[in-house]
């Protein structure tokens, strides 16, 4: 890597590799960026943090040439630059790895890495060269990926490696990573952090966006905090505590991230016995009481999501019984589960929880249409009344119930999903990663809601890969590994993450 040393015509050797100053960008009605500064030196990893809507992604869009700033200057290696397209930014050495990976699933790792810059010999593709260079690139990251396998069949962390390999294949000098560990297990995340350190030592400047504050101390040199499109603080990653960071991000002191709860669990509401599906779920049994929050913890691939889907009838189970309030129920499809009072709030709200292009009103009404219609005709007045009631009850911030669900923030979308199941008066709520993609301030509201729901007698099962969340919210913790339950912990103030982790890797 020769990053940072390429001389420009007016290069200033003392300047940081990347300097963005006074960046302003307005959209109709919002000032997304209001004079933001960001500097990154070669061989430095800078964490960019802030709540959703703080301006992180807009700033990265400006850097990546996706949007043009209204004002402000960008200097790369001391030279003023203004790119008009993502292509120009890439050519200058800016690589952005988005949260939603952008690989073509049917193409192999090497085909993806060299997409658009295929090596050729006499005008024909040279796949052998491609594969050799792929193996070299991935080896440089201290990893191994089979260059023959289509990317759709690689794990998420392998796909991420392919994306990083693509970035360094073009000699990227600045690498932006947006929530790279959102869908990685702890071990995979740790490996990714090693890769980032490797890149740092070879002189790449890394901008690291994450909601996971623990990671920042582990892998970043410096933190930059944005709020409402402005710089609100920052400093060396080691010197800023978790509390201080959160206070900067939300602009107030969060008294307690996980609100206190005082519920005595009642009789057993949901009992699942001997659930089984292939290698994903092997003989899983558990019960949840009224008013109780049970957490399913474990690494990615442990079978948490799969277990919830079996309870909900979303996938076919090979064995196992389900009882609600002591009565056995037949659950062969989501319809059966819904009729039995069970609701699944999926991890991926965009793909499975909501019809994004449709109005919030229709999303909330969707599982409730039977109760809202007579002889097949929907009663529009009752539908609106129901939506208004639950949107208010859950404090969903809405301009109008007819705005498309896609326009809401992550936290509000999750509230809409909760609303649609509350309106159905479901008694058992299965939450899969309840706060994924939701920013710190809005998380607390979701936690409060979950507590209120439990207090009202609902039984909650929460699958989560966020250990602080598990420890902060659950009454009991069921730890899974490789499709089996490896242990159960009654949660309390003296339970440590290490105890859970020990069972998760068992």
């Amino acid at each position, binding site marked *: 890597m020769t990053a940072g040393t390429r001389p420009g015509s007016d290069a200033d050797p003392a300047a940081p590799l990347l300097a963005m100053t006074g960046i302003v960008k307005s959209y109709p009605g919002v000032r997304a960026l209001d004079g933001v500064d960001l500097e990154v030196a070669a061989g430095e990893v800078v964490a960019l943090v802030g709540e959703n809507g703080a301006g992180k992604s807009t700033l990265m869009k400006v850097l990546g040439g996706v949007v043009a700033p209204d004002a402000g200057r960008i200097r790369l290696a001391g030279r003023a630059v203004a790119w008009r397209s993502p292509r120009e930014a890439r050519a200058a050495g800016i690589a952005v790895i988005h949260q939603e990976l952008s690989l073509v699933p049917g193409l192999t790792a090497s085909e993806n890495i060299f997409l658009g810059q295929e090596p050729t010999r006499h005008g024909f593709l040279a796949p052998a060269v491609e594969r050799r260079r792929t193996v070299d690139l991935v080896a440089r990251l201290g990893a191994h990926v089979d260059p023959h396998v289509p990317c759709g069949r690689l794990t998420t962390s392998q796909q991420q490696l392919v994306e990083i390999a693509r970035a360094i294949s073009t000699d990227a000098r600045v690498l932006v990573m947006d929530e790279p560990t959102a869908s990685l297990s702890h071990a995979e995340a740790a490996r990714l952090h090693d890769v980032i350190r490797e890149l740092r030592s070879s002189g790449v400047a890394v901008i690291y966006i994450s909601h996971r504050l623990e990671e920042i101390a582990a892998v970043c040199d410096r933190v930059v905090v944005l709020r409402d499109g402005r710089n609100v603080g920052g400093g060396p990653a080691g010197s800023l505590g978790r509390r201080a960071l959160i206070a900067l991000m939300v602009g107030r002191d969060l008294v307690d991230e996980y609100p206190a709860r005082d519920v005595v669990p009642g009789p057993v509401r949901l009992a699942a016995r001997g659930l089984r599906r292939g290698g994903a779920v092997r003989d899983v049994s558990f019960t949840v009481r009224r008013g109780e929050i049970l957490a399913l913890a474990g690494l990615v691939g442990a079978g948490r999501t799969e277990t919830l889907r079996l309870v*909900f009838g*979303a996938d076919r189970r090979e064995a196992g019984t389900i009882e609600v309030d002591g009565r056995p129920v037949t659950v062969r499809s*989501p*319809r059966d589960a*819904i*009729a039995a009072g069970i609701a*699944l709030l*999926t991890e991926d709200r965009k*793909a*499975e*929880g*909501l*019809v*994004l*292009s*449709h*109005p919030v009103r*229709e999303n909330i*009404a*969707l*599982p409730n*249409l*039977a109760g809202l*219609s007579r002889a*097949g*005709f*929907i009663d*529009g007045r009752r539908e609106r009344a129901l939506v208004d009631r639950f949107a208010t009850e859950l404090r969903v911030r809405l*301009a*109008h119930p*007819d*705005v498309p669900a896609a326009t809401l923030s992550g936290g509000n979308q999750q509230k809409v999903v909760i609303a*649609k199941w509350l309106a159905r008066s479901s008694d058992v709520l299965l939450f899969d990663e309840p706060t994924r993609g939701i920013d710190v301030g809005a998380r607390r509201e979701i936690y409060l809601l979950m507590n209120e729901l439990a207090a009202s007698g609902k039984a909650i099962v929460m699958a989560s890969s966020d250990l602080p969340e598990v420890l902060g919210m659950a009454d009991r913790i069921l730890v899974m590994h490789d499709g089996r339950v490896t242990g159960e912990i009654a949660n309390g103030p003296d339970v440590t993450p290490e105890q859970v982790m020990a069972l998760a890797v068992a």
Partner: protein
Amino acid sequence: MGPLGHRLLADYRMVPVLVVLVGALSILTIADQAPLDDAAARRLAATIRAAGPPDQRVLVVVRSRPEEQAFAKTLARELDPGTDERVEVVRGDPAAAREALGRLAAAGGRLDAVAATPTTAGWLVLADIPAAFPTLGSPRVFVPTARRWPNFLRGDNLVNVANQIAVIAIMAIGMTAVIITGGIDLSVGSLAALSSVVATRLIRDHLGGVDASAGGMVLACATAIAACGLVGWGTGAVITFFQVPPFIVTLATMLMAGGLASILSGGESIHQVPESFVRLGRGADVAGIPNAVLLTVLLYVAAHVVLSRTRLGRHLYAVGGNAEAARLAGVPVRRVVRAAYVASGLLAGLGGVVLASQLRSGSPTYGAMYELYVIAAVVVGGTSLGGGEGRVIGTLVGALIIAVIQNGMNLAGIESYTQKIVLGLVILSAVLLDRLRRR
């Protein structure tokens, strides 16, 4: 403007396009119109009576078109309520007029007036009377007063447009439902052919042929429509059960239904149906509105209500918008998708029956390429091929746009090859317009 206003604008943004098209075609086809209705005939009779003596002899010269014949009949009745043969009517071409004049001249006596239509008034033989038949004198030629009016906007032409598009518009209702679920149905053209063949063959072979009763014809048509619905159910079952792309399944259905129609008809048209079989497609039983048009309107109203006000409608949109989210919300996704293909099959069958009625026959060649026009109507009407959105009234507008363009170009004398190019451009512009809106 609230979100509702935006939605309305987005849903029906092709309406202004239709209005502009109608305006443009009206201007392009503006021409002198001789009103040949009863009122005009009475007015002309009054004019002629006022201009001459009470017992004047009049020759009415018209062509053999039905509207001109009716005009002549009314005119003759008005001018000559008795039967003293002071008025003679000639129907046909200039030669017939010359012959009649010759007969009048041979019989002796004067001719006081000639009543003509704007077309016949231009015939040389009428201008030549004083020279060619001096014994008749020099009769004045009377023509009903003309007015400027677009050919396109004439009542008979508008009825024509509506009748032409009725079949495609009916089939497009089912297609809209299918496309809202994110699917496509290529089999509708073949199903229309199959339906026309089944209905006419049942009438020919089992229900008395040209002597079939009304009840028999209804039974035959209902059977044909139900058969197409059954085919639609099978198509939907294969799509939902085996998770095969609708494009492939309906392509196969299209081939099979087309083949079946050819086998059942022996590859020929079936004409052995009663005269009254055309009542559905060409009749006008309620207030002069063509039955096919009335049927289309009723179906659109019903479809609009189903799509916007019922659970089934909401489920169709939800399945097309996000099938997995819909399934996890308890929507019976497979049943909903099947319902869309059944609806498409039934309406294609109905379209085939209307077509057979309009053409008074059934044939395996009917409905050829209709699937493409039907899909075009849906797309031009603003329904996204991606599924999850669209309005059936938009589809009606889309079908009207296609009909108006075809009809307008016919009136303007544009040849059919050019028409295809224009139609293609219109479809392309509709899709581009949709893209721009989404930006």
